[in-house]
């Protein structure tokens, strides 16, 4: 498909496009799936497709296909869709060719060479890890590897080809004796360096420790959120508010807050498209703007929204390299890269006299994405007493507001995890409201 890019661009121009852009992605993945302690199935997927953006008088049309024989049709449609629309005076232009940074840790040749037998071996190790803890079953899980390559080409001279690899392992477990309790664990990486046995063992140990939970009284207390719990809430509440598109459409609580203190002074949040080995790392974003490192919160002060090329043009500023796509089927919109949450680390549980430790939450996607209010069910939660994890908690609802939380962070662990693109340690937040 890649060989058709140039022709597609030329056709769009011939049909009347002022500017045109082609995005082609290719993905090859192999995975093995677990069901009840056995490796049940193998999957091999090759997917590729082309998305075409045509611009006429600032009006954008977009069309896509996975079928080489329909490329001419989609070029036609993208141009005719652009003609249907009124001109957008706020459109500036597609990104121009630029100097691109080098990135590292995004391609592991061991992954692109991996076969199904290796995948099955690693999946088996994950099950072994889970079953190394007695009285636990793995209910489901998966180990997968992927290789991807994409091309971005436009009429302003951008022509980028980037490739990378990825690997992920996850497992769900349930106790088989006594009180029913579940847990999960997962790791994702760009290199073949995840500890598959450890993923299984840690999920099982958590499920066992969560058995026979106690009930607790509603109160306000210290809550330590594991990276899984924090990132789940963070992605559904904070991330939408730093999106320049939401800000421009008056759907962000951070409107007009640039330069203001919005968090405790020890907190830094950085959007980093260049992070070594980051899940969202590549030389450019998905419309061809060079990747960069953008401080979002520096010492508690709100520094910047995230921009793609279009929203940057509207605000007379530069794209922060955040023009992202869900796949070739969609045109770019603002999306975070690796969002790194930094806070000085300590032995955070040992420093906590009283509180609650929460591993994961369910229902974070029901949060109010603008106000940042949320109410979630905490899973695999424990009381903390005199600096130690004490007893499991049966059922717990956690409510709060992300912007209030940012001012109440009082500690962090040294257990930084890459939860997808969110890179974060366990964080302690004071005076959180819990209902048992």
């Amino acid at each position: 498909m890649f060989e058709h890019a140039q022709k597609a661009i030329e056709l769009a121009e011939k049909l009347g496009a002022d500017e045109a852009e082609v995005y082609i992605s290719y993905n090859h993945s192999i995975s093995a799936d677990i069901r009840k302690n056995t490796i049940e199935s193998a999957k091999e997927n090759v997917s590729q497709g082309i998305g075409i953006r045509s611009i006429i008088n600032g009006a954008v049309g977009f069309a896509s296909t996975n079928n080489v024989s329909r490329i001419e049709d989609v070029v036609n449609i993208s141009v005719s869709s652009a003609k249907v629309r009124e001109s957008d005076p706020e459109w500036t232009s597609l990104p121009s060719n630029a100097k691109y940074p080098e990135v590292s840790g995004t391609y592991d040749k061991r992954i692109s060479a991996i076969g199904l037998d290796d995948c099955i071996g690693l999946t088996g190790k994950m099950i072994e890890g889970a079953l190394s803890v007695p009285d636990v079953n793995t209910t489901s899980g998966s180990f997968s590897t992927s290789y991807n390559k994409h091309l971005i080409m436009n009429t302003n001279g951008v022509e980028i080809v980037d490739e990378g690899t990825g690997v992920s392992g996850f497992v769900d477990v349930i106790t088989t004796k006594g009180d029913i309790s579940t847990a999960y664990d997962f790791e994702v990486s760009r290199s073949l360096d995840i500890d598959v046995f450890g993923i299984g063992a840690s999920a099982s140990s958590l499920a066992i420790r969560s058995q026979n939970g106690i009930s607790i009284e509603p109160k306000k207390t210290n809550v330590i959120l594991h990276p899984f719990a924090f990132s789940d809430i963070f992605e559904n509440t904070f991330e939408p508010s730093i999106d320049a598109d939401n800000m421009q459409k008056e759907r962000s609580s951070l409107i007009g807050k640039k330069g203001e203190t919005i968090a405790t002074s020890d907190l830094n949040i950085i959007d980093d498209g260049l992070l070594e080995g980051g899940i969202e790392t590549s030389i450019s974003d998905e419309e061809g703007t060079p990747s960069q490192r953008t401080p979002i919160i520096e010492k508690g002060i709100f520094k910047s929204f995230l921009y793609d090329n279009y929203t940057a043009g509207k605000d007379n500023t530069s794209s922060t390299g955040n023009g992202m796509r869900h796949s070739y089927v969609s045109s770019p919109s603002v999306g975070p890269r690796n969002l790194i949450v930094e806070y000085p680390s300590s032995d955070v549980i040992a420093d906590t006299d009283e509180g609650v430790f929460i591993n994961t939450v369910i229902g974070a996607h029901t949060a109010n994405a603008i106000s940042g209010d949320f109410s979630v069910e905490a899973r695999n939660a424990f009381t903390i007493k005199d600096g130690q994890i004490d007893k499991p908690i049966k059922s717990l609802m956690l409510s709060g507001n992300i912007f209030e939380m940012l001012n109440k962070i009082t500690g962090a662990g040294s257990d930084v995890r890459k939860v997808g693109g969110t890179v974060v340690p366990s964080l302690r937040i004071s005076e959180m409201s819990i209902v048992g």
Partner: protein
Amino acid sequence: MSEVGFYDVRMIDATSTSIVLDNGNIEEISVNYSKGCGARALCGGSWGFTTAEGEFDLKAAIDSASELAAQMNSISPKDEVKLKPVEKPVIKNIPTAKIDPADVPIEEKVQLLKDIEDHAKMDGVSSTSAVYSEASVNVHYISSEGIDCEYSLIRTGFAISAVATENGSYQVGRESRFGVCGFELFEENDALALARSAGETAVELLGAEQAKGGTLPVILDPELAGVFAHEAVGHASEADLVLEGSSILADRLGEQIASPLVNIIDDPTLHEYGYYPFDSEGVMSSKTTIIKDGVLNSYLHSRETAQALGGTPGNSRAQGYSEPVVRMSNTYIDNGDSNFDEMLEEIGNGMYLTGSRGGQVNTGEGIFQFNAEKGYLIENGEVTRLLRDVSLSGKTLEILNNVTLVGNDLKMHSGRCGKGGQLAPVSDGSPHISISKALVGGV
């Protein structure tokens, strides 16, 4: 070493169009053509899945799935998987589009969407967005058992959302309708009124009080009770979850698990958004009564789970070329014979929860959480003050047993359900139901 004993292929050809409006401007017009197939093969106890896109080679796809299955089975041999025998599906009563969206000029669609968005604008509403989507899909299924069947379907729908702002507070109202139909969707649903209602909800919520959490009697409206039926009960009845040991409903067939007033049904033959004539294994769709008069009556099955547990297949579904997974279609709590006023009178003091912002469930432990769009206090048998940010959580089986009244005003809502990383069109619904005790969370 075992031979490959079974294979099947789903070939899909689809065209979809979406239009996104934001604050009155066209944000995006996007068209997608896709063609490809998902093939699977079974060797002994091992499955192999592959996908091929574009002008694919059918034989190569089958060979590649077969190779994966055989390789998997030789490295990791296990008990043979048997599939429940099925007949070739008889396709009848397929919903047709009265007005094919492809015949409606794009300008007309844009104008209609603009009118819809306009109606969500009112004092207090600071921004609006609206989405229109249409898709036509042809699915062709073949299997090594000689089944060869095909259908075409058109899906059309729209969603509107309005945001209201006041003193740094933000509230959202949303409405949507999606169906297995054509452009007549806009004649059958008053889209403009729905848009107005989204705007009104957002504005109303600005003035709502924060809910105070606690354990209370509650009434759920049809939308939220439908979400409960789908999330908390429907998922736990999926036989793949039962088999893998992550369903609270395992080993409970024939047991009284709910109040005798509760009947929960999954019916893919209804012409609602979750409709299909045959599932992703070529099995003719049919109605399943999951809970009958409070007794767990049946799980939802694929051919593999139906053979393993006993039952009727027909609920295996896949997104695009992905592998089929056991899942729901149109799921609802069936009508009872109470009405809303009786519920208010019975409850006296409690909460009335309406609409849904989504939910999540842990089927293994039987725990769920979801958020209502709005809540109202019920005081002395009357609906009084409006509350916001109300969530409902608890144990599925406790809630099922705490149902004290079931209304007679069943209503379905369309949506999409995620499982195993795949999305599928579904609908769920219920009449109003009254629950004697539930954990309601507030901020």
